[in-house]
C-alpha cells in the first residue's frame, strides 16, 4: 500500500510505517479497550474487576503510544486528563462511602443505596466502587507510562 507524502513524514523508518505492525495493532487496540470494559463490568460474574480492567485499558493506550509515538498517545488522552482522572477515581470510591453515610448508613455500607432491597444496594455500591478503582488504576498506570517513557526520549 503506497503511503502519502504526509504519512511518510521525514523519516521512512518510523514505527508506524511498518505495515504489518500498524495493521495488526490497529485491529488489536479496539479489542483491548473493549475487553477492558468487558472485564470491568463482567467482574461480578466471572474473573475480573476494576484493578484488572484498569491495567488492561492502560495497556491498550500504551500499545498506541508504542506504535504511533508518545506524542500521539498524549493527544488521544492528554496527561492533564490522566492526572485529574486518577484523583477522580479515588474520589468516586470515597464519595460512594460518603453517599452511604448521607443516606443514613455507615461508611461503605452499600445496603442503604436502594431503600427497597439491600441486595440491590450492594450491587450499585460494588459497581460504583469498581468503577472508581478502574478509573484510578488506569489513569495512574498511564501517568507512570507518560512519565517514564517521556524520560527515555532525552
Amino acid at each position, binding site marked *: 500500500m503506497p503511503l502519502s507524502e504526509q504519512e511518510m513524514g521525514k*523519516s521512512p*523508518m*518510523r*514505527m*508506524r510505517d*511498518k505495515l*504489518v*505492525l500498524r495493521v*495488526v*495493532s490497529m485491529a*488489536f487496540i479496539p*479489542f*483491548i479497550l473493549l*475487553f477492558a470494559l468487558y*472485564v470491568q463490568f*463482567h467482574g461480578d460474574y*466471572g*474473573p*475480573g474487576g476494576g484493578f*484488572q480492567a484498569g*491495567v*488492561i485499558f492502560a*495497556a*491498550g493506550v*500504551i*500499545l498506541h*503510544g*508504542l*506504535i*504511533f*509515538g*508518545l506524542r500521539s498517545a498524549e493527544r488521544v488522552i492528554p496527561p492533564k486528563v490522566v492526572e485529574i482522572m486518577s484523583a477522580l477515581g479515588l474520589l468516586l470510591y470515597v464519595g460512594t462511602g460518603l453517599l452511604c453515610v448521607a443516606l443514613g448508613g455507615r461508611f461503605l455500607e452499600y445496603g442503604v443505596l436502594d431503600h427497597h432491597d439491600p441486595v440491590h444496594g450492594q450491587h450499585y455500591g460494588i459497581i460504583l466502587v469498581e468503577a472508581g478503582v478502574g478509573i484510578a488504576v488506569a489513569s495512574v498506570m498511564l501517568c507512570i507510562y507518560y512519565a*517514564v*517513557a*517521556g524520560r*527515555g*526520549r532525552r
Partner: protein
Amino acid sequence: MLSAAMVGVVVTMMLALVRATAGPTVFDRVLAVNMIGTKTILLICIGGFAAGRPDFVDLALVYGLVNFTGMVALVKFCRFGNLASDQPEEAGAQEVL
C-alpha cells in the same frame, strides 16, 4: 489425558526457557519468551477444561491481548533504544520487522 497434555506443555516451556537463557541474539530471546507466553495460554485453557470450568478462557484472552503489548515494547526497545519517539536512533539501520 489432559494432565499428560499439561506436562507436555510445561516441558515445551522448559525447552523455550533454555533458548531464552542461552540465546545468542536478542531475537532468539524474544521468540523464546513469546513462545513461553503462548504455551502459558495453552496451559490455562487446558487447566480450565481439566477443572471443568471452561469459562476461564477469559484469562487466556487477556494473555493474548496484553502479551502483544509487551512484545511490541521489547521489539521497539531493541530497535529504537527508547519507548517514546518513533524515530530510529541511527540512520541506515537494518529493517527488522
